[in-house]
């Protein structure tokens, strides 16, 4: 046999294809393609495949032969076996199923239909979200005077889990943001002799925007992902079904404590972010811009209006709801196992950040347009 024949796993002699390769792990790479090509080139409609080089045939080898025979039929050729040893015959008897399983690729020719399906899915998803929002708000309000339906101490536990852990990170980041904002604006303000307005800049931007927004983004990544993962895992493990069969509403039992936990902690964390951010700016103002502490603080008090405080507070509440509802929404919609949980966790964080920024824009327009 020519070396090339050995390498490709078969040889063609007098119209017969002689198999040289062992089929136990599928043979050499691209053996099937090579054999199909040889069948295609054959002038005869009936083609012998000599299996005398094989001592035995396992299920992989039998499946390989079945696929070859089927592909031969597609080409209008009949492939039959010769030189069948006892071991090969035993394998054929056990494993050979040359079912005409010709896989015809399904062409997606109806773009309108695909578009329609996307719209239907989006409509259903929006409906699910609306149901979740309404049910969550309902049970959250009910929880004000009915403490049943969830574990005792669940709200406090959630508030601690969400708030306490996030506090150092939020404080540090807010301090740095306030410091950097003051630092970057100091040079420009000094040129115009407007040093004092650094207080206004820091106070207004932190109170109206940066404080609640940064807090929300951090909590979306930290707590939103945890909430989504927890609910998704419960869904996958049928724990939510178990709650339902025990007469407990999963939204009331699982989601509402998280809603209250984040509604309590988010404004508090936002206040910390604002105060610490202003403090960061204060340090730069006092050290770089020749402002006295008293002057800085008086200017801060003068710059801020009640509306600024209210807008910051309202934003923090709205952001909190967006984070927890989107996390719960994606958690409930998980499909598949571990991979699905990972997927919804990521999706919920991205969606929450997106939702928070949109809400920030809308609320900004409402308060300040």
């Amino acid at each position, binding site marked *: 046999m020519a070396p090339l024949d050995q390498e490709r796993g078969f040889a063609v002699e007098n119209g017969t294809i002689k198999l040289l390769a062992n089929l136990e*792990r*599928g043979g*050499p790479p691209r053996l*099937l*393609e090579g054999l199909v090509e040889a069948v295609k080139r054959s002038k005869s409609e009936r083609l012998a495949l000599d299996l005398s080089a094989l001592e035995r045939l396992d*299920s*992989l080898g039998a*499946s390989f032969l079945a696929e070859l025979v089927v592909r031969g039929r597609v080409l209008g050729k009949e492939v039959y076996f010769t030189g069948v040893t006892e071991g090969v015959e035993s394998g054929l008897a056990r494993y050979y199923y040359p079912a005409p399983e010709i896989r015809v690729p399904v062409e997606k020719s109806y773009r309108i239909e695909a578009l329609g399906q996307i719209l239907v899915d989006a409509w259903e998803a929006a409906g699910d979200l609306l149901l979740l929002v309404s049910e969550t708000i309902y049970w959250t309000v009910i929880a004000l005077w009915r403490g049943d339906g969830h574990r005792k101490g669940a709200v406090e536990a959630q508030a601690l889990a969400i708030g306490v852990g996030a506090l150092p990170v939020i404080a540090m980041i807010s301090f740095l943001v306030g410091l950097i904002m003051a630092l970057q604006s100091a040079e420009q303000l000094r040129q115009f002799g407007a040093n004092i307005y650094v207080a206004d800049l820091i106070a207004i931007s932190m109170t109206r925007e940066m404080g609640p927004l940064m807090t929300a983004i951090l909590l979306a990544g930290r707590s939103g992902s945890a909430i989504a993962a927890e609910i998704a895992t419960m869904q996958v493990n049928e724990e939510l079904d178990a709650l339902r069969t025990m007469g407990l509403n999963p939204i009331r039992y699982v989601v509402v404590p998280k809603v209250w936990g984040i509604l309590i902690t988010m404004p508090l964390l936002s206040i910390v972010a604002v105060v610490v951010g202003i403090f960061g700016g204060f340090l730069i103002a006092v050290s770089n811009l020749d402002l006295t502490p008293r002057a800085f603080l008086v200017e801060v008090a003068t710059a801020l209006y009640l509306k600024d405080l209210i807008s910051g507070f309202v934003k923090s509440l709205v952001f909190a709801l967006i984070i927890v509802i989107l996390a719960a929404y994606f958690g409930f919609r998980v499909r598949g*196992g571990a*991979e699905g949980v990972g997927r919804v966790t990521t999706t919920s964080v991205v969606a929450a950040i997106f939702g928070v920024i949109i809400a920030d824009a809308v609320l900004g327009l409402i308060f300040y347009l």
Partner: protein
Amino acid sequence: MLARVEHLTAAYGTRTVLDDVTLDVRRGEILVILGGSGCGKTTLLKHFIGLLMPKSGSVKLFGEDWWTLDEPDRDAVIQKIGVLFQNGALLGSRTLAANVAIPLEQHTNLSDAVILRVVKLKLRQVGLQGAEDRLPSELSGGMRKRAAMARALALDPPLVFCDEPSAGLDPATTFNLDRLLLDLRDNLGLTLVVVTHETASIRRIADRIAFLDQGRLVFDGPLKDAIVSEVDPVRRFFQIAEATVG
């Protein structure tokens, strides 16, 4: 002899789980590893399949000392064994077809079309024809075990290890699973090592019993001898089993 542990001692921290166990697995048999809860059955099985390193002693698979083999040689050996884990251990986010295809994709040069044929064949062998596109979460416990068995059989291994295959299954499903194991031995010539304490299964499938008691191998012999054995834990086990069945 397809597998052997020799003077195997295993421990979790300071707690000895297996104590000087020597046990062969012989070609063409169904060897049942038996014993009470916590006696070391699953630990012994995990040593056989190379998942745990012994404190002392050796583990041989197809004549090779597992812990002295390098990576390519281990790869060659691992393809000759199949393992059915207690809970199936199917990848939950992938279909049955994708699960069964994993060893084929990893260890063969087969094209996708041939792999699909093999997958359908394996699922047919375990009575799950037509279930290729289903997710594990959509299956019953018994069906998941069968699907996991199909995956264990993907590369036609001559030796299959089963860890509590009928755990959590009803008697009818257990019966069917036992018939499958017997079919694999009789028609495909497989050798099976089954860890279980289900007495009904033991009586149906066991050719040989290896009985562990507190980490020690106290009995190694045919089922019929085990049933009448005077070795205390073995005798108690089968007496309680008889009393429970009634």
